């Protein structure tokens, strides 16, 4: 099995500070990490490899520092890492990101399975995975909470995967032929911690870098220029709540809550 995992480099939310007086976010110098939700995709890839053999390639698009995200995946056990980095990729929206990733996937050869996180903790759109799948014309299974069954391709027969996906109505069981693209939710597994060995291997590993030219892309189809959407305004939501905090005996507290519920017609 050849498996590709797409991982994103995002700001570490633990480090995000809110300026107490202005209520705005302090963004300066926030260190980056691998998108925490992508760890589940990496872990699932590793488990499939342990079961079926093969190769795990991790792919990221981002600034040169996004290498750190790839090294994290390598330290967990991924075999190879590819970074798409080029100033002309900057400002890509989800369409342009997925488009650029799709060119790289095509360049990197055949994959039985592509795994993505459910969403990135910075952009939080969850769109790149399904868009990438659609651009590669693969069956897309989103919100996967378990891979129930997998048959790798065998003797000219196509592979098959069966998943449980988490929906509003419950767990949907769904099967699809390989190659396919999955986006996975946190419930799917418990990501392993990198071993010492893994870490030192990751430090030494060579990361393949690909630029616009390497992907035979034109500057019109990626980055800000290639993005159908434009951010036209950024603002900070005002904190509109008139917070009342009370410290009273339990009976009194209960009265407060009941009054609040009644006032707002919640009971």
């Amino acid at each position, binding site marked *: 099995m050849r498996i590709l995992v797409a991982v994103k480099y995002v700001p570490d939310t633990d480090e*995000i500070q809110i300026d107490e007086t202005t209520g705005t976010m302090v963004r300066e110098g926030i260190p980056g990490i691998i998108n925490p939700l992508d760890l589940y995709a990496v872990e699932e890839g590793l488990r499939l490899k342990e079961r079926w053999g093969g190769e795990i390639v991790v792919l990221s698009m981002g600034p040169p520092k996004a290498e750190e995200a790839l090294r994290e995946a390598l330290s967990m056990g991924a075999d190879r890492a590819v970074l798409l980095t080029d100033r002309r990729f900057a400002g890509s929206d989800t369409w342009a990101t997925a488009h650029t990733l799709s060119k790289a996937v095509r360049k990197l050869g055949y994959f039985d399975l592509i795994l993505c996180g459910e969403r990135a903790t910075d*952009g939080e759109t*969850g769109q790149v995975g399904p868009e990438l799948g659609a651009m590669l014309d693969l069956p897309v299974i989103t919100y996967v909470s378990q891979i129930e069954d997998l048959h790798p391709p065998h003797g000219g027969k196509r592979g098959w995967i069966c998943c449980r996906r988490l929906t509003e109505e419950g767990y949907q069981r*769904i099967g699809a032929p390989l190659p396919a693209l999955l986006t996975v939710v946190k419930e799917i597994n418990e990501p392993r911690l990198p071993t010492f060995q893994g870490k030192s291997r990751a430090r030494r590993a060579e990361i393949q870098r690909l630029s616009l030219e390497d992907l035979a892309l034109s500057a019109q189809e990626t980055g800000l220029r290639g993005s*159908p959407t434009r951010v036209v305004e950024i603002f900070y*939501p005002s904190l509109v*709540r008139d917070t009342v905090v009370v410290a009273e005996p339990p009976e009194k507290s209960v009265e407060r809550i009941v009054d609040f519920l009644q006032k707002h017609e*919640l009971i």
Partner: protein
Amino acid sequence: MDRGVWIIAEQWNGKLKRVSFELLARAQRLADKLGDHLSAVLLGYHIKRAAQELIYHGADVVYLVEHPRLFQFDPDPYANCLERLIREERPEIIVAAATTTGRTLMPILAARLHTGLTADCTDLDIEEGTGLLLQTRPAIGGNVMVTIKTPNHRPQMATVRPRSYKPSPRDSSRSGEVIVKDYPDELFASRFKLLGLERPREETVNIEDTEVVVAVGKGIGKPENLKWIRELAELLDGAIGASRAVVDLGWLPYPHQVGLSGKTVSPRLYLACGISGAIQHLAGMRGSELVIAINKDPRAQIFKVADLGVIGDLTEILPRLIQRLQRLKSKGEKG
């Protein structure tokens, strides 16, 4: 006729989901501003009645595609039919629900149609002069809001969260047109096999689509105490949310988790019990209309986003609160 504003209606077992009416209400404002038609797209099987319902709730036109393969959501026939319909009718704007269905279908369409898509918009408006759709959404855990446009690609597409808007009222005197689309068989072909649905363990698990979320954190102390949370949720007719700490301890399954790596909810009331209010938790709930927080630590961050903060011990407050609500309820029922 102009190309108009569309919503993608959602149905379950032939019955329209409430979010379809929320989408209609939202899109109505956009259509009015543009002086344009409001259309709904409905895919399913044996759903003519539902098509009429969409008209009663504000649609001028309903595009109806019926086929056994559309009975349940299957990405292939759904995306194929919608892509065909969009290419035929060329709408200006499409608004869909940010449900697991909408969030799967819309990106696939955006990719195929080469257009922009903005997820989880909290506000949609029309720009004066240009008539462009202004799509406003939170980013980075609700710490910033961004407004996004799709200037040159069509359609302009956005998803919005369920429960973020009031549903449009029903008016059975409204009339409109149902346009039935008959598509060739190949559009209904699918690579997928739908193998069935398992209902979740807890009935109240759909926390994104409920008026009230009673959320529990590690401060509840032990799993046995969850009985209070269950009772409260029942009394308030709400669903149970949880912090990641509670899910990681295995006290509640993952579908209950609220926050950065769980669900984002915006109910009318979020009642946080024993939750410290870590930034990753706040990311999933700060859009709630009203927040009550109970915590024994006066410095807990959750109080910063609460309307009513109650400093106190859950083990003392919750049993009394439940008793009080039960009494109120039985009084109400007696008349």
